[in-house]
């Protein structure tokens, strides 16, 4: 009815920032691993982090997940400054991490792996006094979660070792998605996988994003990055060289920025 509301739209469309780093520095003696890096993960996006070896990708991720303490700078989760003392703090804050090596217990079944470290106990005295696990509920919830993520798996009580590499990594990714409240960080999740299996895992990452959970994806594989990322954060010499969109930039552009041959 009134035209006064229109100016507000500009601020409304400003995306919510889930995880942010401001001017983060990390030095080891004389070596500067992070040289005042900025970082910004928006709600509902897949943000790829790319960079040459030694550009500071891993150091940045470690700083974001509490695996190391920045020398200076600020990290904010949902706009609130945070100081993680270790990876467990990050997990408690709702940040889950997936690693490239398949972090599963092969002889345990799929449901047990999904709930590993966060097992559900039976209700009532059986659970509180006798510490009994609620295996049935864990199986049901595991099945429901995998169905929701549309990830194809054999029976949920099969041991993980009977799965293919892609399905195993799918279990690790789904576990992270199941328990992350804020975001999931994936460190080269497909590095150990073949082409077809990589496709399965990428599809899974996409459906995690579609369910509203933002994803940080560290990857060396440009085609994969261009396949699923919404934005690409490019690291160079311990700083953020640029953030580009795969829609406006080509792989060659990104590689040029990575190597310093071009600027955004």
């Amino acid at each position: 009815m009134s035209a006064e509301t229109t100016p507000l739209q500009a601020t409304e469309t400003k995306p919510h920032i889930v995880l942010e780093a401001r001017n983060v520095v990390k030095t080891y003696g004389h070596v500067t691993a992070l040289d005042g890096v900025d970082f910004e993960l928006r709600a509902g996006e897949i943000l790829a982090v790319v960079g040459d070896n030694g550009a500071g990708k891993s150091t940045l991720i470690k700083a974001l997940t509490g695996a190391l303490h920045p020398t200076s700078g600020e990290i904010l989760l949902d706009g609130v400054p945070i100081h993680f003392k270790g990876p467990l703090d990050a997990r408690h804050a709702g940040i889950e991490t997936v690693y490239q090596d398949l972090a599963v217990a092969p002889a345990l079944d799929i449901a047990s792996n999904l709930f590993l470290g966060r097992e559900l106990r039976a209700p009532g005295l059986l659970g509180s006094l006798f510490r009994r696990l609620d295996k049935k509920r864990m199986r049901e919830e595991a099945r429901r979660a995998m169905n929701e993520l549309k990830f194809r798996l054999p029976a949920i009580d099969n041991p993980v070792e009977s799965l293919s590499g892609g399905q195993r990594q799918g279990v690790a990714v789904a576990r992270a998605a199941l328990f992350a409240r804020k975001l999931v960080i994936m460190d080269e999740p497909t590095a150990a996988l073949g082409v077809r299996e990589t496709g399965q895992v990428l599809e899974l990452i996409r459906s995690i994003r579609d369910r509203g959970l933002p994803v940080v994806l560290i990857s060396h594989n440009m085609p994969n990055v261009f396949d699923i990322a919404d934005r690409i954060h490019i690291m160079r010499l311990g700083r953020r060289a640029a953030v580009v969109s795969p829609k406006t930039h080509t792989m060659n552009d990104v590689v040029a920025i990575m190597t310093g041959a071009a600027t955004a």
Partner: protein
Amino acid sequence: MTTATVSPVETSRSLKSRILGAPSAGPLLVLIGFCLIFALSNPRFLATHNLSIILQQTVIIGVLAIGQTLVILTAGIDLAVGAICVLGTIVAGKLVNLGYDPVLSMGFAILLCTAAGLAAGGLVSGLRLPPFIVTLGILGILTAALRLISEGGAFPVRDPFLAWTGNTMKLGGFVLTYGVLIMFALYAVVWYLLNQTKWGRHVYAIGNNTEAARLVGIPVRRHLLSVYLLAGLIYGIAAWLALGRIPNADPNAMQSANLDSITAVVIGGTSLFGGRGGLIGTLIGALIVGVLRNGLTLAGIDPLWQDLVTGILVIIAVALDQMSRRKS
């Protein structure tokens, strides 16, 4: 209005595949096979009297094998099993013979065994030493120390409480010692811990993939410590059962307990690489060893053949485990 959607995840494995796929299915068939052979060759084998003797002969190795199973599931091995158990018998026996209260003496001895387990666990988890070396060291230390304490010789222990587990009760013509009942109770309790609680789940996870266990937030070191502590407690209880069978404390006893308990665990289908197997298999494994000894003795065959057949079974069990691991 609902449309039938094809669920990507199958609901459940069939009952048949679950039974055939159970890790203890193979050992159970072997046990039944041996029982059949011995029953057909000698009718005395199946006499209730003989069966209850087999159980009584299985008790000590059977209980020690519970602790051994826990340690092996974490991808460790315990070579101090027998020595810790003998520690219990010598300490309890010495204290009672000195005139101390038998209940307190036995309790103190069990506590010492638990402490020995805790020491092993501390060295394995705290200093990250290989379990093989740690328990080998404890075996050497305890064996020497116990011979020094008991001045080299065995001594009789005559006390009704220490011998209590040797008492018998009748169960429909079947004679059971309290020791046999305690063994079954221990199997039930530890089975529950391993299969129905978070603690047990994490034991398997650590044995399977220690790094993954750490990454999902399981306190791996503390958990290993609890495993060795529980194992020590179980060896202490085994000491009480040993005094019930033979009222004698002997520093030179149980020399073969290490290998016998490992044999029971391995024949029962638990992998020496950790993370696979379970307690039901171990009980069956201990019974296989007991049945084999008894059956061959009844048949009048040289006891050396018992060790020979047991040795072959161990190699077959390990070979099967290796092959199934390579396949997956």
